[in-house]
């Protein structure tokens, strides 16, 4: 007869304790940390380029998660801000420990904004807290309006949802209203921004939001 042994252990306990430690580091340095997540190809890195053009690079640091290449980090190097690249190999997400290790290579004392660009994937990154102050989900309008319903955790946990590539809307059947409604039912507090990195539309609103969260 087998015996039953109570365990009641959180499977993500180790990750969450790293995340809590990271959060203490962000707080101690007054760095606002955002975790940017999306499908592959949604335009996160381009959005980051446009963002860095509008902010003081000495106040910004970036942790770049990529499965294999350093291409994204290379695109951002010209801005002169601190960048740490994490090659996740086969892992489809960044986790608390990876960010913890990356922080050893960053000096956050003057950094007011830390951008963590997660691996392109809407499922796994949502599961792993990294200690961020806000999760940002980027959804390009070339994807489906039903994405929020397919990936509810991502949209439930996000503070901001960016609809990207809106310059393409005239060529697509994508309904912003429907996408917004789908996301809102999962997370009624979600803030929406509509952005085109091509025309610049919406970028000021986005950087104003970031600036409002950056201390000094």
């Amino acid at each position, binding site marked *: *007869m*087998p*015996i*039953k*042994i*109570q*365990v*009641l*252990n*959180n*499977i*993500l*306990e*180790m*990750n969450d304790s790293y995340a809590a430690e990271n959060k203490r580091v962000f707080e101690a340095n007054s760095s606002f940390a955002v975790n940017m997540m999306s499908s592959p190809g949604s335009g996160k890195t381009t959005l980051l380029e446009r963002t860095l053009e509008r902010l003081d690079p000495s106040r910004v640091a970036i942790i770049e998660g990529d499965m294999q290449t350093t291409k994204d980090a290379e695109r951002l190097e010209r801005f002169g801000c601190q960048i740490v690249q994490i090659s996740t190999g*086969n*892992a*489809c*997400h960044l*986790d608390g420990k990876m960010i913890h290790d990356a922080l050893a290579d960053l000096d956050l004392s003057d950094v007011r904004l830390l951008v963590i660009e997660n691996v392109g994937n809407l*499922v*796994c990154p949502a*599961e*792993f807290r990294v200690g961020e102050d806000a999760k940002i989900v980027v959804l390009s309008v070339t994807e489906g309006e039903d994405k929020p*319903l397919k*990936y*509810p*955790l991502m949209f*439930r946990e996000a503070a901001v949802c960016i609809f990207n590539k809106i310059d393409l809307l005239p060529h697509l059947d994508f309904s912003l209203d429907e996408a917004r409604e789908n996301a809102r*039912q*999962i*997370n*009624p*507090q979600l803030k929406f921004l509509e952005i085109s990195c091509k025309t610049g539309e919406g970028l000021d609103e986005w950087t104003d939001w970031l600036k409002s969260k950056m201390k000094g």
Partner: protein
Amino acid sequence: MHEMGLAQNILDIVVKTAEQNNVDKVVRINVRAGQLRGIVPEQLQFCFGFVARESSVVDGAELVIETLPIKGKCKSCSHEFSVEEYRFVCPECEHEDIDVLQGMELMVSNIEAV
């Protein structure tokens, strides 16, 4: 594939528990996963079967995953309700600020061993 990482974490928890309790063989592991976690049980079981090979005490144990549906509590009127189709709106007062009471769990609740 985050199921692989989760499977490894489950194995670590189970191995530790088995050692602490001096068991010879773990036969069954009961895991609770909230619906919001979006765990695909078959994938997690598959990954677990793979990683469990590194422990002779755990190898071959059955991984049972209980999915817990989402329950919410309205922050305005305190009404508790089950959240259907990820609609986080209070059915009583239509308030949209809802606490998640259940649905975010991810835990090893117990193991059965000989």
